[in-house]
């Protein structure tokens, strides 16, 4: 019967700690009762365990769909946040680069050294863009589920 307990533990491994142990205990108990009943009706133990596990469903069935919607909203919020970050980093790096260009052309127009710090500054918006695209990809995967 360790099998069932492990199955239940595994199913609920990501839920909040509060009330988790109790939940696992009561669900395990109920599933064991079901197996008992099935065996009484003439099923083999292995078949009963398999049937019980297959029919249980997923942790999404256990919690309301609203939780899923919550997660989606949260993700959207993060994405919006990253969009703001991207805008900020874009404006910031453009400002820094134009100051560099100005100093460069004003004091030493014969050597175009501003390119080197400009490349360094450009990593800022690039990194944020990378993050934003990653988050979007994640959201798409979530939608397809």
């Amino acid at each position, binding site marked *: 019967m360790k099998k069932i307990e492990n199955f239940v533990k595994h199913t609920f491994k990501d839920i909040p700690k509060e009330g988790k142990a109790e939940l696992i205990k009561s669900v395990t108990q109920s599933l064991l*009762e079901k197996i008992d009943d099935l065996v009484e009706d003439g099923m083999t133990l292995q078949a009963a365990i398999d049937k019980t596990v297959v029919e249980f469903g997923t942790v999404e069935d256990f919690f309301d769909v609203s939780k899923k919607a919550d997660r989606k909203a949260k993700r959207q919020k993060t994405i919006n946040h990253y969009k703001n970050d991207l805008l900020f980093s874009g404006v910031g790096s453009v400002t820094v680069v134009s100051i560099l260009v100005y100093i460069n052309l004003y004091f030493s127009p014969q050597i175009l050294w501003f390119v080197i710090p400009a490349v360094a500054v450009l990593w800022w918006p690039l990194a944020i863009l990378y993050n934003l695209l990653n988050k979007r990809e994640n959201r798409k995967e979530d939608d397809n589920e």
Partner: protein
Amino acid sequence: MINSDVIRGHLESIILKLIIEKDMYGYEISNCITERTSNRFNIKEATLYSVIGRLQKKGLIAPYMGEKSHGGKRRYYTITPLGKAYYEQKINEWTELKSVIETLLED
């Protein structure tokens, strides 16, 4: 097969109704639902236990350990007075809802 999203809001009432009829344990409830609907609706165990947990938290049903007529121990659920009152209210809501939907959808 019935879309489980539609029936979800009524699962509480359904389970309360079954427990009012007689004290039952988890698997008995799910079996009973399957039987009565002639297999047109199967409640997933995961959904069932989450609803039972919720009802128990609200104090509408109470668990106790009992013996099956022949066989091992079972965790039975029984209705509380609060649960009965809640069920009455839900039934009124359902009757109302049913008549509204009927009025709107039927010719």
